[in-house]
């Protein structure tokens, strides 16, 4: 997998008397950066196409009559450039432009959020004159203008560099803001259906709109969430990894007095470049929720209610309960997908060593035995596809994955490549979503359940996947399609395409590697393989036979067993029953099982039913690492130093209470143990990790492709996925963010709508024996007999209300009242 570094043609030029060698076609402003000469700029951004609008970067080029904008001028052999450092012409030009920029700038730095980190402020000091000659009236606008619930626009401060509009157009593809008017009245605006009534405005509702705030070189775009809450100079910045999805964005958390004030996208060229999504940027206030747990809770024997307890008491009660259950039916471990890889490893080791069971599963969503095999055969220990591979791919195919909603950074990379060189995208999906539309994707409209069949038989897809460097992306939703993952693995093998499994949660991939699965030990080692067991036993210094050899039960089976009274206890991490295929069954299982230990951040549904609740730290209050979908480790440090403990530390203490030294309480120690068993190769290198060393790999599943359910009259096949912004509990507490979520609708085809007699906006009810969801209809070009509703959005809590997963048959009718 080593990359051959392509030979880059270079040219030699002189900047301020220093000879520079720069790649052919590079811009003068970048060449100057190479030698540490900073030319002031506003409109220039390395990831956006040159605009030449602000004219701040003027330099003197020998042989040119006029000063040249260095952000649009490519380097040429023998070019002699003089910047403001050595040329009076360039210096005067820059000072002149700065004076122009400031004449209509309100200079309200004291009340501006950008004050202190403002490129205009900084460059006015470094490259401007100290006094202005402007004595006339400045241009005035009412302010601030909310262009969405989370982005506020101050037009007086705007220098019209067009970074935001170019970002929206070139990167996100959501052209909701643009320049309006002209001359000194030129301004950024949103589409106004009717200037008199703000209801007709089309707000700037893009999943990436927060990036425009970050790249704005002045304080024109501000965040409603962060506005006036702090000044840059009293914030402490800590690098951080995003805990929301499997993209693995690098981020920066700015905090003050023990509270995170804002988060910004980090700069990681290999992963998120300089962007992130609005969920990553704005959704962090859940840690300050009022139901946040800070002290352990124990169910009082007398009252039967949860009461606060000391750590020693809670740990003793928990240990005693688990020890009793271990010999009396066993303990099931549900970890959830929000864990760091170190925490997942702690659960994995705790289950095997302390509880003597393989009944552990991280999956808190619809799943299948086929998926369990697939994770062992085609995911664990493998680093086959990276973001950079998307840029090199001949074609990409998405099955069971809507990239914009479920992994926004994959979407950005694919779109970048689509715009740059027309990357061909294909998707197997029920309709052409907005994300697929922006990728120019060829969508094979498919009824949920038939994905495997389509993928297996489509000549078009086979041809696309045979292209050089083609990538087959499969989402976690494909688990609920019979034969889906088997077919994907088979087709990838046959066509030579790369296969990438993209889960939705940040901790999912790490949990696979750490062995939080009923059939896998850390490093993808199958539990049934004696060699694998002995390798793990040796690493953990266990006697032979301590590690359980029988495959464990998956989430569904654990819940079924608990419900049937076969399990002695449940140890539950951050799992919300509403995410599971059947929330009702999960809650019944929690009620039925004799003893429940819950490691929780907030007083959740599980915590309320638990016998012992142990509070754990949210991502910002602990150190750890996520493994993103690529298999890239994304380590992060503690942002806020609090007394809260990570899951691993709590489990370590619990183990000690049970008389075991697990040695996972310390992140460094956990990492050392992980490195011995489950280290992944570095993406894009030929280095080998320690995963799967000396062990067999689980065989690829070979489940035959299933067929889609056949709806009869009044029925439809359910299609669904999560909106990026929805009811997720990690988005709690931010109304500004929720305001830009997409409106939940029920999508049906034209003929299905005609059968029901509904038009756009009419109420459509989707129901099962358990409940019903009523949403406005949106007639969409899609397969007949299918209805799509969002999985967990306001008014559409699919699994909780209907108790079914996608692919199921549901009753569909017109009207009805909201359940």
């Amino acid at each position, binding site marked *: 997998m080593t990359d051959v570094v392509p030979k880059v043609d270079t040219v030699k030029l002189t900047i301020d008397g220093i000879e520079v060698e720069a790649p052919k076609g590079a811009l003068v402003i970048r060449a100057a950066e190479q030698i540490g000469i900073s030319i002031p700029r506003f409109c220039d951004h390395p990831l956006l196409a040159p605009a030449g609008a602000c004219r701040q970067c003027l330099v003197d080029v020998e042989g040119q009559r006029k000063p040249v904008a260095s952000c649009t001028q490519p380097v040429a052999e023998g070019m002699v450039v003089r910047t403001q450092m050595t040329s009076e012409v360039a210096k005067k030009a820059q000072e002149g432009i700065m004076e122009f920029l400031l004449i209509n700038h309100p200079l309200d730095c*004291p009340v501006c959020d950008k*004050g202190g980190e403002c490129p205009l402020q900084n460059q006015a000091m470094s490259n401007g004159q100290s006094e202005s000659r402007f004595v006339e009236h400045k241009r005035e606008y009412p302010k601030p203008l909310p262009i969405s619930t989370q982005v506020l626009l101050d037009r007086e401060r705007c220098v019209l560099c067009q970074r935001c509009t170019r970002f929206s157009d070139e990167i996100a593809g959501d052209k909701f803001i643009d320049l309006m008017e002209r001359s000194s009245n030129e301004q950024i605006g949103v589409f106004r259906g009717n200037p008199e009534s703000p209801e007709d405005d089309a707000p700037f509702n893009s999943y990436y709109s927060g990036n425009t705030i970050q790249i704005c070189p002045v304080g024109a775009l501000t965040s409603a969430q962060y506005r*006036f809450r702090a*000044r840059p100079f009293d914030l402490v910045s800590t690098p951080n990894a995003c805990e929301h999805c499997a993209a693995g964005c690098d981020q920066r958390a700015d905090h003050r007095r023990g509270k995170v004030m804002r988060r910004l996208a980090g700069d990681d060229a290999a992963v998120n470049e300089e962007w992130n999504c609005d969920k990553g940027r704005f959704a962090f206030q859940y840690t300050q929720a009022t139901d946040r747990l800070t002290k352990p809770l124990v169910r009082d024997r007398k009252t039967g209610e949860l009461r606060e307890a000391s750590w020693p008491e809670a740990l003793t009660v928990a240990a005693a309960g688990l020890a009793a259950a271990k010999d009396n039916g066993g303990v099931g471990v549900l970890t959830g997908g929000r864990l760091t890889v170190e925490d997942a490893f702690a659960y994995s080791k705790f289950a095997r060593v302390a509880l003597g069971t393989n009944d552990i599963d991280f999956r808190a969503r619809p799943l299948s035995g086929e998926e369990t095999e697939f994770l062992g055969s085609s995911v664990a220990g493998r680093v086959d596809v990276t973001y950079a591979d998307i840029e090199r791919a001949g074609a990409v195919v998405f099955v069971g994955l809507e990239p914009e909603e479920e992994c926004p950074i994959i979407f950005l990379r694919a779109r970048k490549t689509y715009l740059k060189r027309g990357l061909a995208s294909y998707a197997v999906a029920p309709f052409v979503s907005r994300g697929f539309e922006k990728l120019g994707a060829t969508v094979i409209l498919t009824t949920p359940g038939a994905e495997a069949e389509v993928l297996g038989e489509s000549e078009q897809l086979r041809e696309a996947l045979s292209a050089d460097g083609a990538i087959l992306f499969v989402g976690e939703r494909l688990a609920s399609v019979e034969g889906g993952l088997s077919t994907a693995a088979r087709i990838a093998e046959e066509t030579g395409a790369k296969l990438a499994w993209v889960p939705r949660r940040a901790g999912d991939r790490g949990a696979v590697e750490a062995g939080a699965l009923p059939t896998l030990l850390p490093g993808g080692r199958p539990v049934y393989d004696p060699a694998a067991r002995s390798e793990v036993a040796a690493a953990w210094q266990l006697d032979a036979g301590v590690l359980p050899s029988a495959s464990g039960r998956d989430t569904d089976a654990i819940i079924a067993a608990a419900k049937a009274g076969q399990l002695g206890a449940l140890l539950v991490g951050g799992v919300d029953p509403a995410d599971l295929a059947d929330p009702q069954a999960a809650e019944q299982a929690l009620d039925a099982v004799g003893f429940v230990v819950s490691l929780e951040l907030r007083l959740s549904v599980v915590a309320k039913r638990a016998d012992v609740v142990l509070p754990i730290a949210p991502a910002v209050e602990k150190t750890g690492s996520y493994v993103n979908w690529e298999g890239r480790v994304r380590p992060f440090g503690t942002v806020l130093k609090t007394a809260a403990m990570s899951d691993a530390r709590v489990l370590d203490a619990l183990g000690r209470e049970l008389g075991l030294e697990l040695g996972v309480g310390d992140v460094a120690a956990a990492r050392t143990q992980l490195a011995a068993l489950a280290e992944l190769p570095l993406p894009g290198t030929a280095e080998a990790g320690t995963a799967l060393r000396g062990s067999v790999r689980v065989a690829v599943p070979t489940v035959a492709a299933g067929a889609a359910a056949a709806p009869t009259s009044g029925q439809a096949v359910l299609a669904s996925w999560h909106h990026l912004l929805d009811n997720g509990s990690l988005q709690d507490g931010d109304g500004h963010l929720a305001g830009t979520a997409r409106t939940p609708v029920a999508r049906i085809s034209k003929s299905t709508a005609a059968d029901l007699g509904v038009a756009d906006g009419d109420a459509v009810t989707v129901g099962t024996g358990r409940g019903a969801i009523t949403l406005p209809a949106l007639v969409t070009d899609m397969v007949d007999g299918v209805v799509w509703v969002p999985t967990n959005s306001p008014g559409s809590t699919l699994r909780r209300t209907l108790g079914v997963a996608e692919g199921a048959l549901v009753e569909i009718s017109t009207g009805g009242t909201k359940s």
Partner: protein
Amino acid sequence: MSIGGTLKGFGVTFSHMFKPVVTEEYPEQRKPPAPRYHGRHILNRWPDGLEKCIGCELCAWACPADAIFVEGADNTEDERFSPGERYAQTYQINYARCIFCGLCIEACPTRSLTMSNEYELARDNRRDLIFTKEMLLAPLLPGMERPPHDMRLGETEKDYYVGALENPGTSAGAEHYKGGQA
């Protein structure tokens, strides 16, 4: 020791009996300090009672002793504390830290923060030395109205700032305020 030496010594003592006394009879008599004496701070008001402080935190940034803590917030249509968009939701000066250098009042862009001549700042515990916004705000003079309320002196904040030249004495009398622990 000769008697002459003794007399010489007492002579010095006696001669002082006829010189003016420099001892100040504090607290029975309180001499006013110099007009520009750096005493405790005042957060001034506009003539209609709105606060001049815009919560910009420049005073906190200028403070070499890290004695000032400010947190800004949005003025809304219903709750307006200062002209313009921003006001100080929290404002604290810790007089256990303050060195009375006056850099904060130099940094203040709205002349909101000024220093009075009051010097009686001793307290018997450290917590009481943290003065909150309520303690630092100038008292409401006649004609002033307790915020939050609408802007009374103009349509926009500009009317306040441009008019400031004609309205210099917006917090006249504030320095005589003896509140503190109010």
